[in-house]
């Protein structure tokens, strides 16, 4: 049984200028003990989809899905009380800004303890020891002395470790990490990522890592999901994705990596901007910025299709040489 199974997730926000589909027709599969990376630019909907899983989408957002199951539990029909029991205990989430994600009025020890107490993870007299143990596991030196510390007294990296400790306190089966290293110094980023992966391996947790950094993806993920403007564009095994991306957007993203531009005079970029609410293109959402867009791309939105483990949302997926398939004019021209 998959740990997390989502089909056709959609999150719509009612705004003054009309409804905004932040997440559109997204499928997610996570197995036990697997690391899935969700990658995309700002506004791609990668965070929103996971917030929807946690039940953290507030009014005026609306969440719909054909299926949303966590193990044997159906998340769609769940009562608020049952959801509260699940969230934090079996599914946990950590966020991007550790400095502002912890309550400034309470000590870090108290906040971790609250997690243990709420879900009755340990008897009351063991809470303190367990908290110290958790702080130690996330690599905080002299953990017993930090119990009474307030978040503003700790650095960003330490706060993120506290957040991680809090999230694993009840031994969740799935941990969602929403850009956990983006707000941290480069040297700390590596440490935090290693910590996350280490914890994931030792506890056999599923890990969904949301990021916009392709380098992080390459180092940590087993599978990758690339999102754009609320839709999933490609889902592959990491190595295969980096070697031969099938989706033009993914290919453009990889091309824009400085590491791949060695020997070229100019760093390739993707022209244009991510569509907002006013300028949603017809057909494929990427067509205004795609090198290979044709009239069919403007007319007809592509379905998320292809061989299992290599699905893309494109009419003309790329082959190993990066040339579009499926009767694309360029291919026809080169063949002819």
């Amino acid at each position, binding site marked *: 049984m998959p740990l997390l199974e989502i089909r056709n997730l959609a999150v719509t926000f009612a705004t003054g200028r009309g409804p905004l589909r932040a997440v559109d027709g997204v499928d997610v599969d996570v197995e036990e003990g697997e690391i899935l990376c969700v990658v995309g630019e700002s506004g791609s909907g990668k965070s929103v989809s996971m917030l929807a899983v*946690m039940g*953290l989408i507030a009014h005026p957002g609306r969440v719909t899905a054909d299926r949303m199951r966590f193990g044997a539990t159906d998340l769609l029909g769940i009562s608020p009380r049952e*959801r*509260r*029991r*699940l*969230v*934090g*205990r079996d599914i*946990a*989430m950590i*966020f991007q*800004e550790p400095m*502002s*994600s*912890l*309550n*400034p*009025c*309470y000590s870090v020890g108290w906040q971790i303890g*609250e*997690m243990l107490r*709420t*879900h009755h993870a340990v008897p009351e007299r063991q809470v303190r020891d367990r908290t110290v143990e958790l702080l130690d596991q996330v690599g905080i030196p002299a953990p017993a002395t930090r119990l009474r510390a*307030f978040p*503003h007294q700790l650095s960003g990296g330490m706060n993120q470790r506290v*957040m991680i400790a*809090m999230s694993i306190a009840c031994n969740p089966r799935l941990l969602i990490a929403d850009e956990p290293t983006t707000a941290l110094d480069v040297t700390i980023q590596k440490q935090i990522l290693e910590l996350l992966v280490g914890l994931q391996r030792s506890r056999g947790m599923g890990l969904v890592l949301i990021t916009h950094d392709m380098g992080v993806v390459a180092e940590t993920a087993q599978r990758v999901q690339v999102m754009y403007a609320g839709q999933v564009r490609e889902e592959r095994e990491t190595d295969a994705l980096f070697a031969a991306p099938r989706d033009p957007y993914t290919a453009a993203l990889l091309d824009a990596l400085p590491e791949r531009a060695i020997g070229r005079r100019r760093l390739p970029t993707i022209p244009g901007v991510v569509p907002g609410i006013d300028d949603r293109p017809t057909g494929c959402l990427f067509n205004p910025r795609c090198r290979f867009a044709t009239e069919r791309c403007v007319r007809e939105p592509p379905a998320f299709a292809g061989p299992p483990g290599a699905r893309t949302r494109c009419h003309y997926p790329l082959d190993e040489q990066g040339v579009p398939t499926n009767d694309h004019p360029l291919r026809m021209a080169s063949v002819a």
Partner: protein
Amino acid sequence: MLRFVLRRIGLIVPTFIGVTFISFMLIHAVPGDPIEVLAGEHGISPARHAELMHQYGFDRPLWQQFVSYDVGLVEGHLGTSMVTHASVWSEFVQLFPATIELATCAILFATVIGMPLGVLAAVRRGSVFDYGLMSLSVTGASMPIFWLGLMMILIFSVALGWTPVSGQIGDAYYVPQVTGFMLIDSLFSDDQGAFWSAVSHLILPTMVLGTVPLAVVARMTRSSMLEVLGEDYVRTARAKGLSGPRVVVVHALRNALIPIVTVIGLQVGALLSGAILTETIFSWPGVGHWLVNSVYQRDYAVLQGGVLLVASVVMLVNLGVDLTYGVLNPRIRR
């Protein structure tokens, strides 16, 4: 922590001196020289005038007079009422508890009703309840409370007969002054109905004086809660699986309280201004009524001393608010 307290106390000393200066200048700013003013309508002969000028030191340079005024203050000399000939300090001490009683009840009224309403409005943002509360709140803040008091007397005391018209307690009751607070003293007195009489006399004045603070507290609570509810740590709290009420009260409200408490504390000035009007309407025997009468009677000694005392109270309360803020917000303690 102690350093924080001392530093805060040190900051108000210059302000206090400035306040004494204004109070000192009061008698000198009124047209006519101080002796003429203090003599009032009785008039005074030129010889006696010169004699008194020298006796009180009004012929000395101004700065010298100011210094000895401040020294006199420290020794407790706040002047003597020109009308009753009692010391200003003793009159103040006798009347101030009644004002404290009224103001405390008003602020409790405002907080106990206003905060929960504000929290509910924030949690149910955009609902009918929210709009209703906001409309009531802006109406309350725009209310001329001297008019509100009169209308309430007209409706509840005269037309319906539910509440008494004026005063702190019914004329039939004699309550010996122990603490100066009628509610407490009447509890301890021998008279059976004294306490309830005191309570019934407090109802209308409390509601009238508390109207503006209620509006302010409700609105401030709502906006502070709205801001806090959008913060990242509230999202984290929900992600931990905590119940809605716990998130709102333990995580959000604690942080929202900081600006709310500051606002409540700073209401003391508005409360005292309101007390002047409320006490006048309800014939409440407090400091506000006393000061207004002193203006009517041209009792400048009382006005001078009374204003200084009231200003000192405000400064002390502000200091208290500052210190409480330090307790609530761990970040600024260092």
